[in-house]
Every structure is written in structure tokens, then in C-alpha cells.
């Protein structure tokens, strides 16, 4: 690191500190109201988060910077920008034990989104609609019609996997499916991750490279990423995935890994400066580390995989998968405790098909907006690929030995492991 870089980092750290202390809203002191019946007027500030049998609305109380998470049945359709009156019992979020037997810090998870209080199944009345930012309203509208379009031409449960793959929606999975995804180490495919997006963007770029110059195709790849971010409603996680994907794309296509690595660090620093709480956000940690892993580990492990064919990108896929798995393993063990025995195998079985699944879901979804009849053949191809992916996950997830849970995995071991990986990648010579 040069002197300039150190100065820059210190400068950003100071801004981050100032932002954390003075600009990030603190928990409102409403504890005395917990358990009481309250009624308030507020506005829905995000697209409703639809679950299997409920939906969650992030509601901002009128004229105040206070957010509540309201859960309600799916009987009534709520939209971004609805002004509502809600009346019910105020409660606080509580941490819970996951199916894998580890405590999930739900309080912190919500606090990172400025949510400190819940309202479960209140009485709700819609006062007026369309009060939100018109740009967001428009983006969410596109997103919702796209989801409806996918659901029209792909059957359940494959369509919920489709929603997960291309839009990061997890609401369509039941408990069993979610556990299978976790236990086979494949939950990342339905998380809004830069990795997925970069695969698709790379495919688009390779196709355009046949026709246009390298630079133009890189631009077109980025346009693809931008479209994806827009389609997912430009929420914070999507923007982050987009940035990570761009970095990964530039690194892989140009071969300038260290430039991409530097971009990654700067992007991460800027994100942390903007909202320092992000450091504790698991999806941020995972996407940062997986991106770094896919950029830097392959050069170290490639030599062990030279027996694999280069055709159809098999070798590259295997190397990327192993790189990503190694790099996120310590943090996964620390936060979820799940050690998946079949992770690499299942990932290899499905990852090769994911870009195609995504591609056909995109085509089917887009055509479905115009006409269901022309979308059905594409939907059916997507369905077959998705069906294969789901079957692989369910078969391996149902095995008893597919994973086991490590109850305590101390932070110090995580730090030591990452120190070890860093040393291996950057310092150790051959």
C-alpha cells in the first residue's frame, strides 16, 4: 500500500465514524409502548416482502423517521406507496433459533434496516395509494409484473426457484425447501449475489463479443447488470450485487485481477463509509468475500484441476465454485454453523445449468409480458432445467449426512483462517 492509499483509508474511516455517530438514526425510545395497543398513520416504503402465507410491510410513521415492520396476511394486496392506518399491539423483534440449531440475530438484522419494532397482524386500512417516489413506484411495477409473468408460464414450485434465481425472492419456499438449500450449501443461488449476475452478464458479453469490440461488449455486459438491478427494484442489496458483479466481470474479462481487487476494496470501503453498520451484515460479508475469493483463489488452486476439460467452461466453473466455497466457509461456519458435506458436489451439479435457467426465465418472463402463448415454450425449457436443479437440491438435502451443525465456532478461528488464506494467496511464493 502506498502512502496515498493509507491516507485515503484513514479519511474514509473518519467519515464512517462521523456518519455512524451522528447520521445513522438511533433506536427510537418507544420501549414504554411495547405491549400496548397503538394506532398510527404511515406509508409503505418498500415493495411488500411476500412470504408463503404472509407479507411484511416496512412502514414509515408519518412525519417521523421511525420504521415499523408490519406483518399481515396475504388476503389484501398492499403496494409500495400506500398510506395506511394500522392499529395493533407493538412488539420488539426477538432473536430465534434456526432449524439448524444456531441463534439468528434477528434484532441486529432488522436494526441494520432501521427497524426496531414490529406490529403483528394489526388492523389495517388503506387511506390513499401511490404516495411514494414515482421512480421507485415504476421500478416496483416492472418487478411485480415480471414476477406475475414468470408465475404464469412456469409451474410451482419451480417458479419460486425462478424468482429466487433472477430476483432474489425467497418468499416462495417452504421450510423444507429452505433447509435443503442451506444444508446443501446452495442458498446463495437464490440470494441476490453478484456471482449469479456476473455469470449472466459474462454470457451476454461473450455473445456480443462475436459482433462488437471488447470495450463495447463490456459496456453491454454492464447494461445487463444495470437492467438486472432495475428489475429487482434497485434495493440496496441489488445495487450491491450489481457493483460486485461489475467488479468481477471486469476482473475476469480483462484478466486484470489486481485492478479488480482494488476496485472491490474501494467499493467495499465506500459502502462501509456510507453506512458503517453494513460490516455486520452477513450478506455484505459473504458477497465481498466470495467476490474476492473468485478473483484471487483460482490462480492458486487451478493446478489441482488441470485434469478437467476446458470445454463448456467446466474447469472454470469447478475452480470458481471451489474458490467461492473455500473463501466463504469460515464465515458460514461462524454465522450459521452449517458444514455442508455435499456443498461442492451439489454446486457443481447445478451451477453449470444456472445461467441457462436464468436466461430462459428472463426470456419467458419478458415474453410473458407480451403474450403467454409465445412465452410457454421458453417457460417449459426453464421449467425442465429448474426441475433438475430442485431435484438435485432436494435429493441431497434429504440425506441425513448432507450436513451437520457446528455449535460453536469462535471468531478468533475465523480471523486466523482468513489470515491464513490471505498469506497463502498474497505472500507465499509457489
Amino acid at each position, binding site marked *: 500500500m502506498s502512502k496515498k492509499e493509507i491516507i485515503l483509508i484513514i479519511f474514509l474511516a473518519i467519515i464512517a465514524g462521523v456518519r455512524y455517530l451522528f447520521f445513522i438514526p438511533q433506536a427510537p425510545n418507544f420501549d414504554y409502548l411495547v405491549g400496548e395497543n397503538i394506532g398510527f398513520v404511515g406509508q409503505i416504503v418498500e415493495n411488500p416482502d411476500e412470504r408463503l402465507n404472509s407479507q411484511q410491510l416496512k412502514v414509515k410513521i408519518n412525519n417521523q423517521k421511525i420504521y415499523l415492520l408490519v406483518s399481515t396476511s396475504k388476503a*389484501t394486496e398492499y403496494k409500495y406507496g400506500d398510506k395506511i392506518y394500522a392499529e395493533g399491539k407493538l412488539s420488539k423483534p426477538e432473536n430465534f433459533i434456526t432449524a439448524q440449531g444456531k441463534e439468528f440475530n434477528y434484532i441486529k438484522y432488522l436494526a441494520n434496516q432501521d427497524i426496531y419494532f414490529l406490529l403483528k397482524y394489526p388492523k389495517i386500512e388503506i387511506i390513499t395509494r401511490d404516495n411514494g417516489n414515482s421512480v421507485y413506484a415504476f421500478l416496483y411495477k416492472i418487478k411485480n409484473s415480471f414476477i406475475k409473468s414468470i408465475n404464469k408460464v412456469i409451474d410451482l414450485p419451480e417458479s419460486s426457484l425462478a424468482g429466487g434465481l433472477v430476483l432474489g425472492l425467497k418468499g416462495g419456499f417452504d421450510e423444507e425447501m429452505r433447509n435443503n438449500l442451506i444444508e446443501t450449501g446452495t442458498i446463495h443461488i437464490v440470494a441476490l449475489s453478484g456471482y449469479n449476475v456476473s455469470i449472466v452478464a459474462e454470457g451476454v458479453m461473450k455473445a456480443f463479443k462475436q459482433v462488437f469490440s471488447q470495450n463495447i461488449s463490456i459496456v453491454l455486459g454492464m447494461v445487463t447488470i444495470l437492467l438486472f438491478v432495475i428489475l429487482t427494484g434497485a434495493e440496496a442489496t441489488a445495487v450491491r450485487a450489481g457493483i460486485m458483479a461489475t467488479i468481477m466481470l471486469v476482473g475476469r474479462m480483462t484478466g486484470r485481477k489486481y485492478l479488480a481487487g482494488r476496485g472491490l476494496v474501494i467499493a467495499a470501503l465506500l459502502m462501509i463509509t456510507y453506512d458503517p453498520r453494513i460490516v455486520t451484515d452477513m450478506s455484505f460479508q459473504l458477497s465481498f468475500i466470495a467476490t474476492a475469493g473468485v478473483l484471487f483463489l483460482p490462480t492458486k488452486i487451478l493446478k489441482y484441476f488441470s485434469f478437467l476439460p476446458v470445454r463448456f467452461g467446466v474447469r472454470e466453473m469447478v475452480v470458481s465454485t471451489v474458490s467461492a466455497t473455500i473463501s466463504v466457509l469460515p464465515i458460514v461456519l461462524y454465522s450459521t454453523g452449517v458444514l455442508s458435506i455435499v456443498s461442492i458436489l451439489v454446486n457443481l451439479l447445478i451451477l453449470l445449468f444456472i445461467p441457462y435457467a436464468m436466461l430462459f426465465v428472463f426470456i419467458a418472463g419478458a415474453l410473458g409480458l407480451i403474450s403467454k402463448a409465445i412465452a410457454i415454450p421458453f417457460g417449459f425449457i426453464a421449467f425442465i432445467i429448474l426441475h433438475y436443479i430442485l431435484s438435485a437440491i432436494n435429493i441431497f438435502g434429504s440425506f441425513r449426512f448432507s450436513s451437520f451443525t457446528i455449535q460453536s465456532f469462535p471468531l478468533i478461528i475465523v480471523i486466523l483462517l482468513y489470515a491464513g488464506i490471505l498469506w497463502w494467496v498474497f505472500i507465499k511464493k509457489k
Partner: protein
Amino acid sequence: MKKYKKYLPYLLILVILGVTIFVWQSVLSNKNPRMLKVAFLDVGQGDAIYIEAPNKKQVLIDGGKDSKLLYSLSKVMPFADRSLDLLIITHRDMDHIGGLPMLLDGYRVEKVIDNGIKDETEISKSVDEKIKSRSIESEVAQKDMRVFLDKENDIYLDVIYPNRDVSDIDSNDGSVVVKLVHGENSFLFTGDASIYAESLIMWEEGENDLDIDVLKLGHHGARSSSSLLWLEKTSPELAIVSAGKNNSYGHPHKETLERLENLKIPFLSTAEIGTILIKSDGQKLEY
């Protein structure tokens, strides 16, 4: 553009392949096109019955308790088919209409038949609102109403209850009860009708033939339904329990199962085997 063109044939082949598999799949899945399909869907603790006539007329009776309805329904319906010709709502309890708001959002429904009694619950109001906003034709069920599903194959639905004003009695006993007839075969769908409604039906029908082949036991196999007399009179070849695994009500109750045992009527339960699919060719049943 030249190099790009070389991918076009592959894409075309893939699409044609998709269409071909799709067509064959739909042909093979319907080996005997004259079969009537009746599926008691696995929706957990609730009711949902899907009927498909040989001419592709599709009927759904009740909508389960939640969105699990859509998962089970898409497994028995043709691929990407999102339309139903008729929806029958037996009554407005949560475990019979819980999945309907989501169904009405994603499926085109041509017509709704219910018992005409509205309910003030959020879910019931939402169902009514969606029926209205999508301008779905709606009709109130009455005894002696007949709906032809497939005239060519002699398949029709007969409403046999309510046979009187049911707005003041217990909501379960307001359940629409329909009989499905296919040639020699017949099914009776009872909603949550209890012994009281069963008695009313038997009283009203008098000497009329109530003998059927498949009986969906009222109220998920609760002891307050399916009287011995009712089981004797309907004398089913097979009884169906639509209930959830380890449900908190203890359905089906052991008293009901004892009555079945006494009359040597075999039964199948969705709690144990999931969706129950029965096929009829008008002569005999296949399950």
C-alpha cells in the same frame, strides 16, 4: 452479425425441442382421454378438490387454508394452465377459502358458486372483492341445480344442499354439498356438513337414491359428521378424509373411523398419502 447468426439454429432447435417435449408430455399424461380426474389435494388441514373432465372442463371445490393450494394444484393441472371453469366455495371457513385470494390473483376463474352467505373475516371479504373486481360470474347454490361439465361423456354436478335457507344456522351446516356423476360412477363432496345437515339432506331426498361410490367425509372426518345412517345411506366404496398431518383437532376422529370400520368402508386420508387422485371411466374407478 454473421458470427452471431450461427447461434440462431441452436436456439431454434432448443425451442422446437421444448415444444415437442411439452406436447408429448401432455399427450402421454392423458393416456385415456375419456377419463374424469378427481384429485383431493394435499393442502394440509383443509379442503380442496380438483375435478377435470375429459373435455378439459376444470372445477375446483374449496381453496385449502393457505398458498399450499397453488403448489398442489399446479401438480395436477396441465403445465402453465392458469384457468378454471368453475370454483365452488362450500362455505367461508378459513380452511376452505384460505388459498383463494392467491388463486384469484394468479388464475382466471370463469364462474363461482357459493352458498350466498358472506362472512366478515378479512379473507372472506378479500375473496368477495376479488370476485367482484375481476367481474367473475357468481351464482348461489340451490338444491336441484345441475351443472353439465361434459355432456358427451355424461358428466355433471348436482347440488343437493342447501335445500333451505341456511343463513341462520351454523356455518358448517351451510356447506354446499354437490354430487358428481360420471356414468355409473358418482362422488359426493360434503364440505364441512355435520350430522345435522346430513339429516336434512336424507329427509329431503326421502326415497331418492343417495348411493354413491366415493364420499368425502364431512368436516375432515370429525365425529360430529358422517353418522352411521348417512354412511349406510350413501354406502360409499371409498371414503376420503381431507386433513393435515398431526392437526390440532385430532381429525379424523376415532369415532368416525370406527363407524367406517363397522360398515367395512375403506378410507384414504390426504394426511397420510398427500394428494389422492381418482380416475373414472364412467364404469369403474382407478386409484
